[in-house]
């Protein structure tokens, strides 16, 4: 699938997919990488070293620092795939150096799929 590069780099890993938007601030624990938002479909799951797939960001604009902090604390996702990346997530992944691609039809990606992200070319490949 071909999308748009938000933040460069190449990575490969296991997809963790949320059909709901993610608000990083108050949504993901900066120390552990675990989703803490009550009632969120990914509540209790870790995003660490996964390819995190979600439609778009939501909520607080402090989210950029949370993404940067997750990386500094060694608990960040390996890569991020969105339908539409807004500024909060974009700023976070650029500062943190996490490969990120958007304008991807995320319905095609299933939880647990092995996914290769080549953000430099804006491509996402599902390896089944």
């Amino acid at each position, binding site marked *: 699938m071909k999308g748009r590069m938000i933040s460069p780099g190449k990575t490969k890993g296991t997809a963790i997919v949320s059909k709901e938007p993610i608000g990083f601030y108050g949504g993901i624990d900066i120390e552990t990488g675990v989703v803490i938002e009550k009632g969120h479909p990914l509540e209790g799951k870790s995003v660490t070293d996964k390819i995190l797939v979600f439609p778009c960001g939501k909520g607080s604009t*402090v989210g950029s620092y949370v993404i940067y902090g997750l990386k500094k604390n060694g608990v960040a996702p390996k890569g991020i795939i969105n339908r539409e990346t807004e500024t*909060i997530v*974009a700023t976070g992944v650029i500062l943190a150096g996490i490969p990120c691609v958007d304008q991807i039809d995320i319905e095609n990606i299933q939880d647990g799929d092995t996914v290769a992200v080549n953000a430099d070319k804006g491509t996402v490949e599902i390896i089944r």
Partner: protein
Amino acid sequence: MYLNREEEKILEGDEGEVTERMFRLLVRLGDIYAADKMIPVGSVQVAGVSYKSIGDPGTEFLEDMASKGAKVKVLTYLNPAGMDLENWEKIGFPKDFAKNQLRIMNAFKSMGIVVTSTCTPYLAGNLPRFREHIAWSESSAVSFSNSVIGARTNREGGPSALAAAICGRTPNYGLHLWEKRQPNIKIKVNTNLEFNSDFGAIGYYVGKQVKNKIPYFTGIKDANTDQLKALGAAMAASGAVALYHVEGLTPEADLVEKKGLETIDVGKKELDDTYEKLNTGKNPDVVILGCPHASLREISTLAEKLKDKHLKKPIWICTSRVMKEAADRMGFTDIIEKAGGHVVADTCMVVSPIESMGYKTTGVNSGKAANYLPGFCKQEVVFANINKLIEVQT
């Protein structure tokens, strides 16, 4: 993206390493979002101020910038900090937390940022004009400035706002452009909204429905700025609404194109259901008002209601330092403290470490606070109007 000679020189390092690095971030964002050029900003508001929100990684990031001599070019305000910067000891904020919070404030101050920490800069001396380009980041302040004032800002991340402050510019895309400010969904309100918490509840409901769309409201007959502040804050928290229009009330409502929009009806049932949904607890240990930061009108309302009352359990009202000064002078603070409450400045319940201060259940009248407290402060929530909240604390 077109860059003028001065901007090219920033990329060549003429204004130092930090400005270059921050400008690269802005150019990058501009390229992603297809900005045609950079535009000057009139003011900036930076989020990511509480030690609780940004932790050691954020603190070190800011200290590094400050130590390299970064300075802001335009009027720049800060979001709430994690504690009352003057009375933190008296209110009971932990000492080690305070030490780190003060490191952050010092870093900001040395960059020339005004360390008035508030999510309502427009009530504290940073007021943009209609159509002014700004780069603000706190989500409710973004919503208020775009919607109620008609200024133009995207939802900036903490670091991208800081970059705009240091470079004095932001890429021209998104809500800076008139064609991107048009509504794409209509919300028909069919019920009376009385309390500020009603506006928060409706906002919470609508934000969940419309996510990052631009809603056009009809059926809201009247609302003061406190109520619009509550509405916008809740929509920005439960969704990612950065701009909304209200027929007859907000400045761009008459100007935008609203024909043929999909319509969502919101009535008494949705309002009642939202109150029920947001109530996850009973018997609050503490009631915290002022999310977003209380206006002087909201503080005076609380003072009026607490006059000659004795609270069994505390009520805080969070506000900016500027509003607190006025409340002190008017005797409102005195009345609230005599009843057993606190007027807390510079901070708010969401960004302060209330979970480590012994509180498990918090009462609020804010849809935004009700959205964040369970996840971020591990609180059970009682969501109700101000009268009911005072009743349960007395």
